[in-house]
């Protein structure tokens, strides 16, 4: 085999999360009362656009989650296979060029020369202090000063054309499939799509897809020959760092919820349903946890983890594994600080639902507690869970950046927007300013969080029964 797959802890959890998501999707598709709100989400323009943006982030994240170790080329063909010690992901392989093309130090976005002056030896043997050419960025140009703008323009144009061409192919394929299912000629379906008011979301989706794919292809075309967002202090490509950080951001936003969900569901429902001393105990538990300032609890936990890691350094084979454990631990502890809100909401809802007629009737008929909870309470609370999960997501992504600044976030060796901001912060004091690391992190984070916030609004409008009644 040319590679062996590596499964990190967080990878396994991501796959569980994906499986849960797919399972829920299949379940929801079979039940009309669950399908209706999703249809409402997809029938708003914001819902469609944000869902596509979020999906492209998710695609990057999933590609970056499949980890493996490559086989080393062995000289005698019969020798036992040796595998590289370095763990890489599919995204790393796809961005191979970006990862390899290291410069010496800072360079501005799309630059052809280094950011700092160096002593260069001239062909005639004299020495001169100037900005040296980059090793990789714009290497193909012979006279960078005059050719660069034209080259950038043509590359962008080529990227846009390629993007639109692949979009046309993809759209054609999808439309052809739909037309065949509806047994209509493609041309006729195309006309329907352009005119019918019912297919407005479909049109929005196609236009969004066209924009996203053009941006993607232009970025790829430019990044192939330049450093799109420049390079950082040690000459690493900033665009690559920003792309790698996507996984960290998404993981913190989603895994935290996944790990807190069982506790919040179990305790919240138990408190509201059984009342009495169970309720007292659970309320005591979450008031106690809530009264500790969140940052301090996270700090305490991370400090303890550091002590543990320092004392058990030999148990980890690679730095990737250690960073991964820290990320998982961070998700856990963020989950501990954030489950109380959901727990309180669920408790309130359970208190309300247990007095509802059909629950009373079930109790009178002698149905067991477990059945009542799973058949009658849980399905009626899922909208609260979903809304909370979606609303919390953007806050958690932003929290990661703040925690990394305080040094209690993810491992400093791990790619994350927080670490990018943290290391770029002091560079603003340089003259002239090194602004690109910060800008790249800002753009990637802003787009993700904005999309998540808008999506959360749409989801809340569709799923919250109170809001739905208001409209009618």
């Amino acid at each position, binding site marked *: 085999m040319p590679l062996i797959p590596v499964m990190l802890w967080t990878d396994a959890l991501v796959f569980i999360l994906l499986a849960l998501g797919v399972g829920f999707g299949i379940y929801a598709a079979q039940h009309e009362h669950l399908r209706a709100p999703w249809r409402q989400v997809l029938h708003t323009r914001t819902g469609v656009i944000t869902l596509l943006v979020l999906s492209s982030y998710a695609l990057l994240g999933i590609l970056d989650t499949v980890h493996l170790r490559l086989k080393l080329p062995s000289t005698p063909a019969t020798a036992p296979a040796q595998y590289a010690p370095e763990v890489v992901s599919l995204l790393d392989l796809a961005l191979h060029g970006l990862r390899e093309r290291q410069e010496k130090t800072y360079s501005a976005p799309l630059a052809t020369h280094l950011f700092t002056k160096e002593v260069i030896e001239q062909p005639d043997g004299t020495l001169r202090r100037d900005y040296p050419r980059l090793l990789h960025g714009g290497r193909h140009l012979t006279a960078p000063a005059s050719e660069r703008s034209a080259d950038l323009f043509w590359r962008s144009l080529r990227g846009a054309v390629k993007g639109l061409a692949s979009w046309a192919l993809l759209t054609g394929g999808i439309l052809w499939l739909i037309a065949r299912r509806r047994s209509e000629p493609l041309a006729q379906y195309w006309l329907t799509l352009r005119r019918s008011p019912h297919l407005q979301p479909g049109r929005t989706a196609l236009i969004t897809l066209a924009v996203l794919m053009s941006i993607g292809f232009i970025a790829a075309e430019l990044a192939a020959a330049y450093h799109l967002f420049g390079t950082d202090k040690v000459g690493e490509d900033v665009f690559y760092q920003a792309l790698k950080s996507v996984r960290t951001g998404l993981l913190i936003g989603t895994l935290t919820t996944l790990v807190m969900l069982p506790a919040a569901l179990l305790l919240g429902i138990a408190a509201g349903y059984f009342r009495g001393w169970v309720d007292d105990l659970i309320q005591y538990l979450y008031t106690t946890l809530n009264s500790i300032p969140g*940052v301090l609890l996270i700090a305490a936990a991370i400090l303890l983890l550091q002590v*543990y890691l*320092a004392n058990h350094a030999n148990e980890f084979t690679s730095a990737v594994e250690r960073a991964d454990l820290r990320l998982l631990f961070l998700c856990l502890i963020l989950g501990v600080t954030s489950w109380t809100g959901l727990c309180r909401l669920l408790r309130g809802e359970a208190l309300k639902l247990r007095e509802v007629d059909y629950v009373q009737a079930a109790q009178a008929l002698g149905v067991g507690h477990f059945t009542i909870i799973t058949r009658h309470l849980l399905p009626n609370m899922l909208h609260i869970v979903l809304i909370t999960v979606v609303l919390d997501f953007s806050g958690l992504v932003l929290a990661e*950046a*703040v925690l990394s*600044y*305080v*040094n209690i976030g993810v491992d400093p060796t791990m790619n994350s927007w927080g670490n990018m901001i943290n290391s770029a912060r002091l560079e603003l004091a340089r003259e002239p300013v090194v602004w690109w690391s910060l800008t790249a992190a800002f753009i990637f984070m802003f787009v993700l969080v*904005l999309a998540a916030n808008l999506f959360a609004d749409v989801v809340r409008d569709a799923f919250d029964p109170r809001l739905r009644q208001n409209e009618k």
Partner: protein
Amino acid sequence: MIAYLVRRALYALPILIGVNLLTFILFFVVNSPDDMARMQLGDKRVTQAAVDSWKQERGYDRPLLLNSAATGTAQFTDTIFFEKSVRLFAFQFGTSDAGRDISYDITQRMWPSLAIAVPVLLVGLALNISYALLIVLLRATYVDLASTVLLVALLSISGLFYIIGGQFLLSKLLHLAPISGYDTGINAWKFLVLPVLIGVVSGIGAGTRWYRTLFLEESSKDYVRTARAKGLSELRVLVRHILGNALIPIVTGVVVILPLLFMGSLLTESFFGIPGLGSYTIDAISNQDFAIVRAMVFLGAVLYIIGLMLTDVSYTLVDPRVRLQ
């Protein structure tokens, strides 16, 4: 009322004990004082003698829960649990791992924290409420639509960028305010302008959105329709009726965070070099000073519980329907 408050204060006691036990377990049981000492003194190549003397200087050399060497009550009092955890209840925070008096530091540092937190709260409140009222007054116009977009965008920007961007733009490029630092007494104002401004701006997104929802919810109620039907002007309906009734959630929402203002803002203070409790906490975390972290955890919990009690009291003050017994 008094009886209710006393009972609430008694309820708070088990919560504080819980917080205390939790921090005790986290800091002394999960990791032994030996681990802490090694971490402070620099990992592996530390002799046991150095660890022991570090522990002795800071009083971590006692047994955890029960001192069998001592006699009488000293069996329980001469332990880490009593010295480091129980004493917190009397607000005896002891000395930090670096040897400073924590109580003194806290009383010194809480004023700069308040000097930033209070103006941010008041200015932010005034600005957010008036902006939200304006949006509700002009609802279903382009102002409303544009504001909605603007607020979501403001909400999606990380707090770090507000600070970094504000410092860069206003201090470095325009030279309007010093980048960071602090001064004593009245001279501090010029160091406070920028942090307060940034604090207010970064809160607009979330704050205004929340007040807008409140006002919109209120404006769909029957008494508002009655007020309009009486022929009152829209402005009068908005200020007198809607704002008046929306004050209940606004006041109780503000009251609950009042005590926590003492804790200061972690990010703002450390970015602007302001010697408040927020930067104190951050420094303690980065220096891994467990004694300060423990003290701040306890202080935070106390202030949070006070906030909850104040909320209950404020309900009776602003909403005559609520009676405490």
